[in-house]
C-alpha cells in the first residue's frame, strides 16, 4: 500500500526495449489476424457479419493501437508516464498507475528488484543470487516440458511426481528425505482426489500403473 504514494515515477526518455518489443509482437499478431481474417470472409452474402469480421476489426484495432503505443513510447517526454488514448486520460491513468504497481507488483517490483540485481550477490528467499535466478526460470520450464513428455511413458501422476522431486532436489537443492516425502504425499493426495474420488481417467502411460 505504501507503493501507491510513489505514484508516477520519472521515466527515461528512451523506452524500455521490452515495452517496444512486446507491443511490436502484439502489432504483428494483429496484422496476422487481419490478413487471415480477410481470408475467412469479412461480411457474409447479404451484408451480414461473416466469420472474419471480428478477427479483422480486432486485429486492425490492435495494429493501430500498438503503433500508437510505440509512437507514444518514443515521444513520451520525461516526468509524466502520460498514457492512454493519446494522453487524454492522464488523471485516471496516474491513479491506475498507483494501483497497478502494487497490483501485479510489476513496476513496483521492478524498481525493487533492480537494486538487488545490481548488488548481485544478495540472496533471495530461495537462497539464490540474481544470476542463478535467471538460469532457474528456463530450467523450470525444461523440467516441466520433460515431465509432460514423460507422461506418455510412465503416466501423468508419476511423471508429475518425478517432476516435483526433480524441482525440489535439483533446482531447490532441498534435502533428500523431505523432498521424497513431499513428492510422495502430493502423489498420494492427487491420486485420492482425482482418480479415486472424482474418477478422472488420468493418462497411465505405457507402464499403466497409476
Amino acid at each position, binding site marked *: *500500500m505504501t507503493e501507491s504514494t510513489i505514484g508516477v515515477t520519472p521515466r527515461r526518455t528512451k523506452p524500455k526495449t*521490452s*515495452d517496444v518489443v512486446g507491443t511490436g509482437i*502484439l502489432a504483428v499478431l494483429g496484422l496476422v*489476424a487481419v490478413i487471415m481474417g480477410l481470408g475467412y470472409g469479412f461480411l457474409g452474402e447479404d451484408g*451480414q*457479419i461473416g*466469420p472474419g*469480421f*471480428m*478477427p479483422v476489426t*480486432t486485429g486492425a484495432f*490492435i495494429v493501430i493501437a500498438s503503433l*500508437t503505443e510505440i509512437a*507514444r513510447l518514443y515521444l513520451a517526454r520525461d516526468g509524466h*508516464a502520460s*498514457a*492512454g*488514448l493519446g494522453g*487524454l*486520460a492522464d*488523471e*485516471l*491513468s496516474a491513479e*491506475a*498507475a*498507483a*494501483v*497497478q504497481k*502494487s*497490483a501485479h*507488483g510489476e*513496476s513496483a517490483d521492478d524498481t525493487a*528488484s533492480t537494486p538487488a540485481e545490481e548488488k548481485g550477490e544478495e540472496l*533471495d528467499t*530461495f537462497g539464490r543470487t540474481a544470476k542463478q*535466478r*535467471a538460469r*532457474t*526460470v528456463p530450467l*523450470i*520450464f525444461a523440467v516441466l516440458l520433460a515431465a509432460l513428455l514423460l*507422461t506418455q511413458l510412465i503416466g*501423468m*501422476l508419476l511423471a*508429475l511426481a518425478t*517432476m*516435483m522431486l526433480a*524441482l*525440489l532436489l535439483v533446482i*531447490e537443492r532441498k534435502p533428500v528425505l523431505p523432498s521424497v516425502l513431499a513428492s510422495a504425499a*502430493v502423489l498420494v493426495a*492427487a491420486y485420492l*482426489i*482425482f482418480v479415486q474420488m*472424482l*474418477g*478422472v481417467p*488420468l*493418462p497411465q502411460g505405457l507402464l499403466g500403473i497409476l
Partner: protein
Amino acid sequence: MIDNLMLGIETAVSPENLLWCAVGVVLGTLIGLMPGLGSATGVAILLPVTLTMEPVTALIMLAGIYYGSQYGASTSSILISTPGDSSSVVLTLDGYRMARNGRAGAALAISAISSFIAAIISLMVLLALAAPVASWALNFGPPETLAIILLGMATIVTFAGENMLRGIIMAAAGLLLAMIGTASGFTTARFTFGSMNLLSGLEFVAVMIGIFAIGEVVHQIHRGGEKPIRARLRDLMLTKDEAKRILPPALRGTFLGTALGVLPGAGATLASFMSYGLEGRVSKHRKELGSGAVEGVAAPEASNNAAANSSFIPTLALGIPGSGTTAILLGAFVIFGLQPGPMLFEQQPDLVWGLLVSFFFGNLLLLVLNLPLAPVFAQVLRIPYSYLYPIIIVLSMVGAYAVGNSMFAVWVVFFAGALGYFMKRYGFPAAPLVLGLVLGPMLERSLVQTSSMGHGNLLIVFERPLSAFFMVLAILAFVGPPLLGVINRRRERSRQEKAATPA
C-alpha cells in the same frame, strides 16, 4: 410465499437432505480448491455419484457442490493466485495482494462473509420473484446481450492499470485468442492451423491456469520470491475497519450479480468483473483497489455468488440455464425425469422450494466452515515457497487435464504459463486479456445473432428500447472517463496557471 417457504423448510431440514447438502458443500469446497476445477467440472464429475439418490436429495447435493466450489475457488485465487473458476479470476488482484500483505485470513473472511451476504439476499429474490423475474429476463435477446457485453468491456479500463492503452490492447488480444476455433454461427475453422484440438477453441480454464498459476509461480522465482508469511493468528483475523468496509461493496456486488445472473448466459464472470469495475468508479477507497483493498474482494465475490444463485431463476422457472453449471444441473433434472419450467413449481413444489431453502443451510454451513477455517487455510502460505510452487504446478496440470480429460489442455497450460510469465515480467497486464478471452465468444455470438436478426443491419441495437438503454450506458462508460480526464486536466492546468501567476 410463506406456504412455499414452510414447505421448503420441511423438505430441506430432513436429516438426509441436510447431510447430503453438507457433503455437497464440503466436496464442492475441496474441488474448488483444486486449480482449474470449478463448479461446472465439479457438478459434472460428481453427477453420476448422485444417480442412486432421491431426486431432491441429489439436486440439493449438486447445488451444494455448485456454491461450495465457488467458495473453494475463491480461496485458491486468494492464497496462491490460482483461480478455480473464471468468476474468481478477479480475486487474484486484490485478494492475492491482501494475502501477500499478510492479510490472507482477513481476505478469506471477507470473501466468506460477502459471499454469504450475497447468497442470502439473492436467495430472497429467488424465493420471492423467481417467476416474474424469469419472464422479464426473456426480454433480453441477442441485441440486449450485445449491449451488456459492451458495457462489461468498458470496465476493462479499471483493469488496464498503469498504461490504459496497453490494457485495452491486451483485452483485444484476449478477444483474438477467443476467436480460435469454429466461429459461432459458421462452420469456418479459424486460426486452427489444421489442429483438431483447436476446432472448439482454446479451453479457457487451461489458459487461465497457465497465465495465472504457472505464470505467477515462475515469475515469483524470477523475482526472488516472497518470504513465507508468518503472520500471527491475531493478524489473520478481520480488523474492525475491514469489517466495516465489507457491507457497501458486497451489497453493490450482490445487486449487480443478481441482475446479471438472471440473464441467460451472461453469467457470474461478467458480474464479477463488472462489479470490480464498479468499485473502481464509486468506492470511497477506489484508490486502494489493486493493492489489496477490502472492496476488491468483497464486491466481485458477492457478485459471483449472487449471480450463481440467480442463475437458478431462469433454470427453474423457464428450464433455460443461466450459466454453464446450471446447464449441467438441468441435465441432472432430466436424468431424474424432471422437467424444469413453470410446471415444475406446480407439480413438484416440495422439490423446488426444498432445493431453494437448502441453499440457505448450505451457505450458512459454508460460512460457519469457512470463517474458522480461513486462518487454517491461510497457513498454506507458511509453507516455504520452494515446496509450495511444485505442488501448485502439479495440481494445476492435473486439474487442467481433468476438465476435459484432455492432454491438449495440459499443453495449453504449459504454453500459457510461459506467456503469462513473460507478460508478468515485462508488465503486460493479464486481467484484461482474460476478460477479453471470457467475453470474446459471447461478444461475437451476440454480434452475429444481432446481425442475423436485423438481416445485416446492426443498428437494431438502437431500435430496441432495452438494448438502446444499455448501449447508451456502454458508450458513456467508454467515453466518459477519458472525457472527464480532459476536463479535469484543463481545470487542473488553469488552477496551476492561476496559482503560478501570483507567485
